[in-house]
């Protein structure tokens, strides 16, 4: 299977703190790959390093065969990477519709994708004119994902989509992500191991800024020792 994203031994600094100290992630085309690890392990930082928000100081990020590390983050994103950040980052002063429109990379993106997005998240339809602040947590999460779907993205980086959501909504979210995985590749950061194990085909465990283990999710589910060691009791 072809590799769409290959993160090779990246080291990232925030200020003078050496946060990532050698992270390797290989993401096969068309798969869902989960980044696992305890709080503060460096999962979010890995995603941000891929998209260039915290550019790695060493190592390589190869996306669709080209090295993109060190490039400006909007250039990287414009190559077709969608980012759904940890705390959703909905723009408060924009309406829901504007939150979607702003993500257009080519004029007309929004109109082209609107129906697809409404199919995926029917709730959004009636919220279009509300301001970003008026949404509930779950609606914000839907909007954040929808926003990443507006432009033509080949790779989605989704950070903790289930955070703070009710079980029913998590169900819905999982279905949506599975649907998305049909035509794009997804890198998923997920604290909830149950959710991650159901969604992802592959996994990478990050521990204190290093990737320590990677492989098939099926194998990890049976590897109770690793789960216990790296992810705490789960």
């Amino acid at each position: 299977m072809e590799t769409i994203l290959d993160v090779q031994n990246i080291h990232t600094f925030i200020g003078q703190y050496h946060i990532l100290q050698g992270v390797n992630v290989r993401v096969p085309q068309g798969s869902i790959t989960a980044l696992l690890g305890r709080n503060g392990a460096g999962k979010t930082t890995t995603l941000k390093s891929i998209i260039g928000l915290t550019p790695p100081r060493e190592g390589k990020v190869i996306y669709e065969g080209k090295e993109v590390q060190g490039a400006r983050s909007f250039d990287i994103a414009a190559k077709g990477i969608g980012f759904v950040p940890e705390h959703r980052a909905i723009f408060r002063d924009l309406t829901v519709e504007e939150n979607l429109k702003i993500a257009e990379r080519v004029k007309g993106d929004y109109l082209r994708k609107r129906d697809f997005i409404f199919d995926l998240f029917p709730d959004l339809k009636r919220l279009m004119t509300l301001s970003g602040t008026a949404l509930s947590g779950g609606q914000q999460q839907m909007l954040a994902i929808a926003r990443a779907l507006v432009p033509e993205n080949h790779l989605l980086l989704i950070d903790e989509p289930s955070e703070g959501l009710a079980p029913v909504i998590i169900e819905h979210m999982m279905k949506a992500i599975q649907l998305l995985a049909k035509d794009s590749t997804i890198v998923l950061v997920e604290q909830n191991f149950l959710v991650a194990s159901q969604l992802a085909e592959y996994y990478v465990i990050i521990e204190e800024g290093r990737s320590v283990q990677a492989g098939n999710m099926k194998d990890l589910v049976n590897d109770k020792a690793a789960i216990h060691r790296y992810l705490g009791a789960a």
Partner: protein
Amino acid sequence: MNTFLRKNTVLLITLAAILALFIAAAQGMEKKDFVITLLRGLSVGSLTFLVASGFSLIFGLLDVLNLAHGTLFMIGAYIGWTVFVRPDTFVDLLTPLALILSGFALGDVYPLLATRIRFGLSLKRILPWALVFTSILLFGWILPRYPIAIWNVGNYGQSPVTYSFMADSGTRLPVLPAAFTEISAPLALIGLLLASILGAFGLALFNNTAQPLKLNWKKFISFAILLLVALLTFIFNDSLTAALTGLSSNWLFVIAVLVATLSGAGLGALIESTLIRPLYIRPIYQLMLTLGMSAIGIEIVRAIWGRPEFVMPKPAFFNGSGGVCPATNFADWWANNCSTILLLDGRVRVYNEIFIPIVGVIVLISIWMLLQRTRLGMVIRAGVQDREMVEALGINVRRVFTMVFALGVGLAALGGILAAPSMGLSNAMGESLFLNALIALAIGGLTNYPGAALGSVLVGLIQQFIIKYGQIGIAIPFTDIIFKPTPPLVPASTVLLMVIILLILPNGLLGKKE
């Protein structure tokens, strides 16, 4: 409605108090005084708004407190004056300016070029310095020898004051065209271009942060256009000058306004991309930097235009007199372009008290539309809240930063040139207006656009009412004493208002709570 009332009780009470104060102020004076004072307040408010709105846009999106904003307002006025009173100087400047800019227009090309060439480490360190230094030397050598017909600050007969005075009385002092000294024209032109490219290259090497992925061909087009402009303005210098000098003062004023605004915007873009950008990681230093720029700007103005104050003539459209003037109705005014018009018995200056507020309202609405209706506005509103996320969507926020900085400074410069015919030009004009703008923003809410407008109008009105009462005096109730506020009370009163409002509402009237 109820929740709205509950949430905004303090705000509403404050606004009501201000309104009551205003009505009380209106009671104390005759109708004609009231009308004039009101319009003057709006006029000062509009100018304040032009400075304040740009400042607050910049602060909102970039988090940069541009303390040089007042100085840039002043520079806008002086640039506009130059175009209006000395079009020949303006035309002379076009060629070297286009050449100097052309090197910087190439922008993204340099970092790419730098990655193609492999340097040794020590060379890599020295190279930027060497390039910038060579560029400065070249500029320093060529520019003094380049012919620009200019006034003479040291000689009263040829100083800006005299030129202004003569222009006001409708004559132009004859100007001797300047000529190249000790340097041949082609050498000077090519030298300027070279210096510009070297300088831009050097500066680009200094902030070697992230690299662009591919070349942008638009850069080469703008480079070519600038070169063409330089060449054309050089060849047709004389005819261009003649054309401008022959224009009516109205059209010349329009050109002056455009040039001042655009140069302000260009200056803003330049400042942001060269000086402010390296300091986004050190915000306090940005503050200090803009402070330093403000001091430098004033010194530059002093060196070029001199210290004495002078006035800028009003365009003929607002300067008519005699006949039926002051006009009593619109038709009379239109036919004679009277400088004043009678409104409810008050004698109102059309330019100062009607034209400026109208421009203020137009700008208010257009910026509002820009923010609410365009994609750029959407990006700005989003960027104010979360820059990283906007960037992660694939939008070049840096470029938006530069645009907003340019927009903000352009607005200040527009304010400057509009203010010039009414306030006159002085080295201190920026400072006092900037203070007004700061107070207006503190009152209205630092990053709130409608707040900037509200605060500016309040500041303008309060100042003008106090000035008026300084002339007519306030009868203190139940006594015979007539209290006349003295001029120092004018700024003091607005500051007082600011302090009071900040104590009640720390984020200003319309500012959002943190």
